[in-house]
């Protein structure tokens, strides 16, 4: 079996993955690198790729500094308490001070942002969220990226980063294959910005069949941000900090606009408010510092998302489920009813499909809520991702090594889900992070840091053989059996994914064990992960589509392995409601008010774990 090799050389900036982070990177790179060669490699079609492919009905990260609404540090404090203290505040401050620039430009480009007719500001859904008609959010920002890039390669599944052989720990490009033609693609580049996606579908979903596609985060978010970076030996942070979402049952439709704008609220099956009764017991686990309902009521400091999940999970376990969203009051107002439906059509059409199928009219009945399976990502209310340098003027020494958003591998930058410790970036913040990374990557090149890159033919040929191995494997063993999917020599990607999801669920705190794990379970799980990795060498692919699924699975496995190591390392329950360490059920600020940092040695596969100090943004005189 031969595959054509397509080599793209002399690239300055290669953007791997063009969702919101990648489009921001490609767009901005042209400004700082007017003569630079900017290339995008995207697994799908840039017009509808990434988590925003089907649109959004809100931009969840907008300061409104221009209108005197918030300053960047206000958002940092909000993200800090929501994540129980564990964030990179230098990166958050940096994102927040730039994000409004992105949002206002989106409006100039034609994105319909709703206005507050009285104030002249954007229409607020909550303190940080503004409402948009965002069905075409992605195609609009894609236009910006396409205008800046020299070339856009759609349908390229990037599998590995290329490493420089002249200087250790320096990136030199990336490789992958075209999922339609099967061609092998080599991108030689001075700097690489990884803006690929976080990980859906690594924990067993609640749905059992077709509905496995109706995951909360897009099914095509295959953890490639982590698979690529970990594979290159970049340090990762906060990978234990998976997120569980309280959402409308089965459709996983968003609840933000319902809570914030429509003023709907939750109650248990018997019509009772249930959250407050769980606070005293929970306060003993996490401390009054993190859960202070009176202070929250007085100052509007939010109760962390994970803790509200904890109350929901606890109430259901106490036998008073299901939890309902009380929509029957708000939906009597025809205007609010219309917003409620538009909200789904703009970003989660599947929820509208489900309510139409089940005759759920929220005007006449209060729909059910549930908690999802966990997800590993870094742009919503959680901050998994790479350990990246911050900006020169904000970051303390431990957080700064020369180039903003550069990982611990030279020339390798991150944006969006790829960057760790920066929750609550959402779409606009991810785009902004891409812009920041692009400016820094141009500077890295202009400073002469990418001179003398060497990539041997052996490296290129070696990766090529590795990439197509699942197809060779299939051909070698297919005819040993008569027909069917059962073969003692190989697994199909779907079979491997089922195994990964089951073991993540049972050993790493998935939904079927109520998000509970401990050191013993994690150690057993890690052993099974090692054996699964051996079996992934025997994965089979019948065609290029399946070859893509094979590599997505390998990326998901790599991300999951990091989740195991980080979860084992942090000996506390920092985010009850996201997951529980049964052997350490409390928040432990004496030992664990730190960020967790890992590195997997690409040669040996060995993990090393360390604690990094947690710096906070405080007033000058504090």
């Amino acid at each position, binding site marked *: 079996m031969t595959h054509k090799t397509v080599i793209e050389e002399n690239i300055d900036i290669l953007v791997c993955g063009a969702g919101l982070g990648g489009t921001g990177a490609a*767009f*901005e790179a042209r*400004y*700082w690198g*007017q003569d630079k060669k900017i290339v995008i490699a995207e697994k*799908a079609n840039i017009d*509808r790729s990434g988590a925003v*492919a*089907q649109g959004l009905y809100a931009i969840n990260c907008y300061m409104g*500094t221009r*209108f005197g609404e918030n*300053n960047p*540090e206000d958002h940092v404090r909000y993200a*800090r308490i929501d994540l129980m*203290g564990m964030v990179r505040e230098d990166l958050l401050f*940096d994102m927040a001070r730039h994000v*409004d*620039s992105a949002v*206002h430009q989106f*409006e100039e*480009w*034609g994105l319909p942002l709703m206005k507050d007719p009285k104030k002249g500001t954007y229409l607020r859904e909550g303190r940080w969220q503004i409402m948009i*008609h965002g*069905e075409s959010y992605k195609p609009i920002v894609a*236009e*910006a990226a396409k*205008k*800046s890039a020299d070339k856009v390669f759609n349908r390229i599944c990037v599998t590995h980063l290329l490493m420089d052989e002249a200087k250790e720990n320096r990136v030199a490009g990336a490789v992958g294959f075209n*999922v339609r033609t099967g061609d092998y693609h080599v991108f030689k580049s001075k700097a690489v910005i990884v803006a690929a996606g976080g990980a859906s579908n690594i924990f067993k979903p609640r*749905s*059992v069949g*077709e*509905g*496995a*596609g109706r*995951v909360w985060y897009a*099914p*095509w978010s295959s953890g490639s941000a982590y698979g690529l970076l970990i594979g290159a030996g970049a340090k990762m942070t906060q990978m234990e900090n998976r997120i569980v979402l309280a959402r409308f049952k*089965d459709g996983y439709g968003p609840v933000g606009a319902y809570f914030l704008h429509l003023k709907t609220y939750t109650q248990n099956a018997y019509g009772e408010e249930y959250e407050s009764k769980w606070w005293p017991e929970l306060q003993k686990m996490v401390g009054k*510092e*993190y859960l202070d309902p009176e202070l929250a009521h007085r100052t509007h400091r939010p109760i962390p998302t994970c803790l509200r999940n904890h109350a929901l999970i606890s109430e259901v376990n106490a036998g008073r489920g299901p939890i309902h969203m009380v929509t029957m009051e708000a939906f009597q107002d025809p205007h609010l009813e219309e917003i409620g*439906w*538009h909200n789904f*059509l703009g970003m989660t*059409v599947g929820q509208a*499909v489900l309510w*139409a*199928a089940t*005759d759920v009219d929220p005007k006449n009945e209060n729909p059910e809520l549930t908690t999802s399976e966990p997800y590993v990502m870094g742009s919503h209310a959680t901050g998994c991702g790479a350990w990246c340098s911050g*900006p*020169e*003027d*904000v970051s303390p020494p431990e957080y700064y090594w020369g180039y903003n958003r550069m990982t611990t591998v030279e020339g390798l930058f991150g944006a969006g889900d790829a960057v760790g410790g920066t929750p609550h970036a959402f779409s606009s913040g991810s785009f902004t992070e891409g812009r920041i990374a692009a400016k820094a990557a141009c*500077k890295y090149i202009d400073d002469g840091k990418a001179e003398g890159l060497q990539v041997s033919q052996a490296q290129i040929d070696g990766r090529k053989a590795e990439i197509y191995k699942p197809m060779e494997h299939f051909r070698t063993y297919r005819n040993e059996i008569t027909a069917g999917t059962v073969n003692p020599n190989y697994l199909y990607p779907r079979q491997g994914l089922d195994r990964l999801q089951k073991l993540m669920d049972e050993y790493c705190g998935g939904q079927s064990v109520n998000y509970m794990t401990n050191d013993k379970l994690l150690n057993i799980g890690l052993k099974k992960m090692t054996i699964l990795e051996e079996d992934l060498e025997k994965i089979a692919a019948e065609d290029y*589509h399946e070859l*893509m699924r094979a590599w997505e699975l390998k990326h998901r496995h790599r991300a999951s392995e990091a989740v195991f190591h980080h979860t084992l390392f942090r000996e506390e329950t920092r985010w009850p409601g996201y997951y529980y360490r049964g052997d350490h059920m409390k928040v432990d600020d004496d030992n664990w008010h730190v960020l967790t940092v890992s590195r997997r040695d690409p040669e040996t596969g060995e993990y090393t774990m360390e604690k990094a100090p947690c710096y*906070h*943004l*405080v007033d*000058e005189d504090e």
Partner: protein
Amino acid sequence: MPTFVYMTRCDACGHCVDICPSDIMHIDKVTRRAYNIEPNMCWECFSCVKACPQHAIDVRGYADFAPLGHSVRVKRDEEKGVIAWRIKFRNGQKDMELLAPITTKPWGKHVPKLAEVQGPTQEMRDSQLLYNEPKYIRMDDGDIHTLKSNGLKMKAGVYY
């Protein structure tokens, strides 16, 4: 649902194949029509439904929790800059039509081409500013926020 394709409407133009973010809309080799090859990797994102010039693609809710007999149809028009939806309930009690804008400007015309704008000065390169800043990032259109300007510092330790 996952998506499905009506045999009599599909002309195998391939728009759905081109746009599907999950790479699951393929052309069947026998019928020469598009179909969903992997329904459990379909997000019901409607990208293919919106892209189909023949309106040949529809969605049937996920079999493990959505009963049959519902309909969510869509027509997206870039020229007019609107998207129109129609939602019909299984029991026939509810039939809604909803219309929303998708853009406020002619498609793609107002996105700047950065290769053609004046490049940054060295001073701007050495600053923390991004393209087009400090426009929009401050109330007074002053310089970018810094720790100093906002009276802040970074301090290691336990703060909430």
